[in-house]
């Protein structure tokens, strides 16, 4: 590996690489393990200096995500993203979901929902922060499929919502919740989304 390349990496990390250097770096990274590893080391040094050192340095996110998906005993139907906001929608059974795996640090968790007739519907929810990002980015796959008003909730969903409210209120009384005191003031009304 040439000193030129090292300097280009350094420049790129400082956001000072020009177009040409960038192209040269990208193509050499494709071909050379050494260049890739140097890039990785420099990044780690930079993270360390910024005190942002990731806790698990050797985690391969793609493998983790794949594992998380494999672990979920559910069907994943394709057919569009779902954005969610408010309990009303979160607790509605989802029929059409997809996993956003494009952005790093996507965390997928599964929720298994068995309806009264016994058939199983798969639910994969993305972390809401992630969904926010997608929504802001204007992802064309995002569409609104959930009814939002209380009237649209099934009795069991209403019940769950009530229990969540009861918990919030109870915890507020016993002062069991630090630093985020105003959950109760944040309503699920239409205007408060996003």
């Amino acid at each position, binding site marked *: 590996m040439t000193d030129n390349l090292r300097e280009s990496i*350094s420049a790129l990390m*400082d956001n000072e690489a020009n177009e040409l250097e960038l192209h040269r770096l990208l193509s050499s990274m494709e071909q050379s393990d050494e260049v890739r590893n140097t890039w990785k080391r420099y990044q780690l*040094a*930079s993270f360390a*200096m*910024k*005190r942002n050192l*990731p806790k698990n340095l050797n985690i391969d996110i793609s493998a983790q995500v794949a594992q998380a998906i494999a672990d979920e005993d559910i069907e994943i139907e394709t057919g569009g993203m779902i954005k*969610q906001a*408010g*309990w009303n929608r979160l*607790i509605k059974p989802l029929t059409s979901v997809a996993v956003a795996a494009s952005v790093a*640090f996507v965390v997928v968790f599964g*929720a*298994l*929902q*068995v*309806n*009264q007739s016994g058939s199983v519907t798969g*639910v994969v*929810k993305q*972390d*809401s*922060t992630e*969904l926010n990002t997608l929504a802001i980015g204007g992802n064309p796959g995002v569409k609104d499929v959930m009814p939002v008003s209380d009237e649209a909730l099934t009795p*069991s969903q209403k*019940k*769950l919502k*009530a*229990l*969540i*409210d*009861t*918990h*919030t*209120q*109870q*915890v*507020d*009384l*016993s*002062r*069991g*919740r*630090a*630093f*985020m*005191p*105003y*959950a*109760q*003031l*944040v*309503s*699920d*009304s239409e*205007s*408060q*989304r*996003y």
Partner: protein
Amino acid sequence: MVRVEKFLSLFRLACKSGLLCSLMVGSAIADNLLAEPEASNLFQRISNAFRQNNYDGVFIYSHGNSMESLRIVHRLDDTAERERIVRMDGPKHELIRNGEEVTCVHSADWKGDINHRIPAGPFAKAFIRDVSHSSSGYQVELIGPGRIVGRDTMRYAIKPKDEFRYGYQIWLDQETGLLLKSVLLHGERVLERFQFTQIDLENEIPDTELNLGIKGEVFKHHPLLLSESETIEQKKPSWKLTWMPDGFVMRMQGIRRTHGGDMQADTLTYSDGMTAFSIFIEKASAEAQEQMATQKGATVAVVRVIKSNSGNHFVTVVGEVPMTTAKRLAESIVPVELPK
């Protein structure tokens, strides 16, 4: 030559990251904020600052996909704390608190359930924790100086000692100790955020700023009494947990009427001083099969059905804990064996 450049590059990085800067200005920082604090001292400082200072500011609170801005005006009078909270977004809604008395006004288009949208205690009290337990599950680390809403701050990480609970980072005003920003973290992800975007800590708060600013339907009530009446029976719990994370203690138990009064649930609430979860157990029909899991911001809810000799029951775990913790808790609830 390359080495020199590398060094310079790292030096630039260090400056950007504020590492060197923080070393240089370190001596100028108020001593009492610098020490690596005990969790309990830190929380005491935060709650004192919220109670003792006079302030008028706007903060945002984001939770899941929703974000809301609220104005808080707070003044400590000789007799009591007075405060006014104004929703800045959506339908108008305001509340003023004079000691323990709360008055609430909302405009006609407000759709919220008014009784359950009022914080039970003053703003300041929301930050008072029972600190006797909170140190066991967490470790406090000083990260360093910073700047929030135009004021110099000290930033701390409150790190969970295990994977069963969330972590926090908080930014305290160097001059007053007031909490100016906090985030709730699951690993590296921010699930909830509280942050002042504007604050005045210098000027006197006139009475006019503590009066209701909108007209509408007025509610007066005492949230504490209202809520206590909803516990209809205290008795020995008939359910228990076979597992829970270290440091959680029971805060409440009993049979509670939940919203609307037409539901009753055996309720257990546990807290580790920083966070809490509740477990509700209700009778379910023989054919009940429903299982659900859902999350918004830091709050998760898990529903499962337990089948036993005494019939089916719904177990619902609601709390500000990671989903894996809530699921494990839901699986750890068992009926208490009655002595024969």
